[in-house]
């Protein structure tokens, strides 16, 4: 068994018969319900401390929202989970992040393996300037998970991924066109679709709807909803209504600290902390 991969989601229940090369047999299940576990996480951008003693447990298979006023560190925290913060100079982190019982800062975890397991969707849709087809298979090609597949099977992978995000019917006749010609909403769906062939355990989303119009928001929210159970979704949002509609649990952050973490219903109906209440009522901007 390879110890160098992040433990796979043992409950991967996707029905697609896609082979994942090197999937080890299921791990001993210690934290059955836990996906992400953060302990004493601190992060500095140079001298500025953006995260302060963050401790959270994010449950598996549900949608967790990250809310809080602008600049409180939501994006920063999210970008810790796939270690993409590391590309900035002067970022310093202390503490531990365990994802599916594996510390992502362990020396035997490469960012490549990590990011295969942890997909990310960005605020502005960022499909690559290559064809739609190649976009969907980009991750698969990169990680050579589908190398042994025939052309036909690859086509199936693309079709399944695009069907799952309800994009197949729109783009099936123009798979070879450049992905950047799609509408923003379609682009964002494509950005979710390109994660699917890799079957990540966790999908991180940073305000995935903020660039979309009302109809796009509805569509993408529906899509996120459909990802529940199969994936652990962590979503940053500024939109209170969206947090209420689309999440199961919410984490409220303020100035780099976690203030409250509870079920969405609890947070919005009877928040424990006064600061949470003030924010929800719209007093922090």
């Amino acid at each position, binding site marked *: 068994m390879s110890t160098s991969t992040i433990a796979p989601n043992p409950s991967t229940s996707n029905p697609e018969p896609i082979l994942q090369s090197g999937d080890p047999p299921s791990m001993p299940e210690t934290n059955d319900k836990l996906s992400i576990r953060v302990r004493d996480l601190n992060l500095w951008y140079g001298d500025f401390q953006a995260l302060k003693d963050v401790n959270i447990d994010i449950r598996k298979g549900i949608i967790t929202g990250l809310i809080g006023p602008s600049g409180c560190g939501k994006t920063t925290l999210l970008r810790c989970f*796939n270690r*993409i913060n590391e*590309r900035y*100079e002067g970022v310093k982190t202390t503490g531990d992040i365990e994802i599916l019982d594996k510390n992502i800062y362990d020396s035997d975890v490469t*960012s*490549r*393996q*990590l*990011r*295969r397991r942890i*997909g*990310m969707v*960005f605020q*502005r849709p*960022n*499909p*690559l*300037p*290559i064809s739609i087809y190649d976009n969907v298979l*980009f*991750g698969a090609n*990169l*990680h050579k998970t589908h190398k042994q597949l025939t052309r036909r099977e690859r086509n199936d992978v693309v079709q399944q991924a695009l069907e799952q995000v309800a994009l197949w019917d729109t783009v099936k006749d123009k798979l*070879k*066109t*450049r992905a950047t*010609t799609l509408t923003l909403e379609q682009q964002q769906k494509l*950005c979710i679709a*390109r994660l699917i062939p*890799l079957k990540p355990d966790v999908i991180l989303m940073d305000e995935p709807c903020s660039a979309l119009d009302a109809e796009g928001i509805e569509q993408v929210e529906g899509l996120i909803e459909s990802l529940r159970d199969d994936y652990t979704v962590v979503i940053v949002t500024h939109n209170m209504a969206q947090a209420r509609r689309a999440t199961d649990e919410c984490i409220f952050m303020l100035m780099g600290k976690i203030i409250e973490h509870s079920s969405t219903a609890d947070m919005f109906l009877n928040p424990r902390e006064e600061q949470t209440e003030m924010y929800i009522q719209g007093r922090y901007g």
Partner: protein
Amino acid sequence: MLLLLLLDRNTTKGNLSFRRSFQQLQDRLEPVVVGVIYICGWSAILFVIAIFVFVFKESLPAITGIGTEIAAGEIEVEQLDLVEFTTSPRWIPESSKKPAFGILALIVGTLSVTFFSILLAVPLGLGAAVYVSEFAGNKTREILKILIELLAAIPSVVWGFIGIVIMNPLITNLSGEAVGLNILNAGIVLALMSVPIIVSVSEDALRAVPDSFREAGLAMGANRWEMIYKVLFPAAKNGLLAAVLLGIGRGIGETMAVLMCTGHSVNMPTSLFDPVRTLTATIAAELGEAVRGDLHYHTLFLIGVVLFAFAFIINLTADLVVKGVRDQSNV
């Protein structure tokens, strides 16, 4: 820029009267400024046309024939044989018995030097551009960019110098050839000359790629190299192509350095160690000595027209290729 800063400072101070008079001055000056800009724009077009007309006109007598009166009432017409001109490798314009005006060897010389130089310059230039835009820290980047611009500012005669004084003995020592002025020498020198333009154009192209593309690639698990050739290169391919074509254009048009480094002997090359002669160097070396108005003189202008044609074809393919790439990916 400075004026704007001044204006800004004055507005924040609330110096209204100054601001108003400045505004009036601006309003009055506007038509003048617009006029000057128009002239600048159109003069570029005018110059190109004027130069082309001049060169073409000067080359025309070579084709139509030059009459010289050899005896009373007897006129001998000298005329260029266009078939010989384009297909013969013999260029002996000053021969008193039988001059020959074939530029095939010159064309082959130009192309072989340019081709070899671009073979060296493209990997070097692209590699440098990737390093400057993706790997170097801010400080290193600024320093490198300044140095690269400095490299571009070195006069070509100095490059020729380097070719003769440094490359020449190096090549003779390493290869055992008698003379080191050849395609290899000129190609290397020309490559070094076109690297700066390739670097600066392709570095611009790479840095114009939005950071979100890089993040997309990295977040999918690509390492830096994969991100560069699977994400950045496709995203920047138009600009990179333009950089390469500009490099080729630089190579074809270069005169002084190749005059000095190629060995300047008319020759159909069979190896990198053969000396050659280029179109540009031929014009530069011979125009001053050619008798004004005779066939040799006009033929040199015709070579100028050929160079024009080369430049035109390169620019046109550059446009078409870049446009084609764009169209294809936008269908």
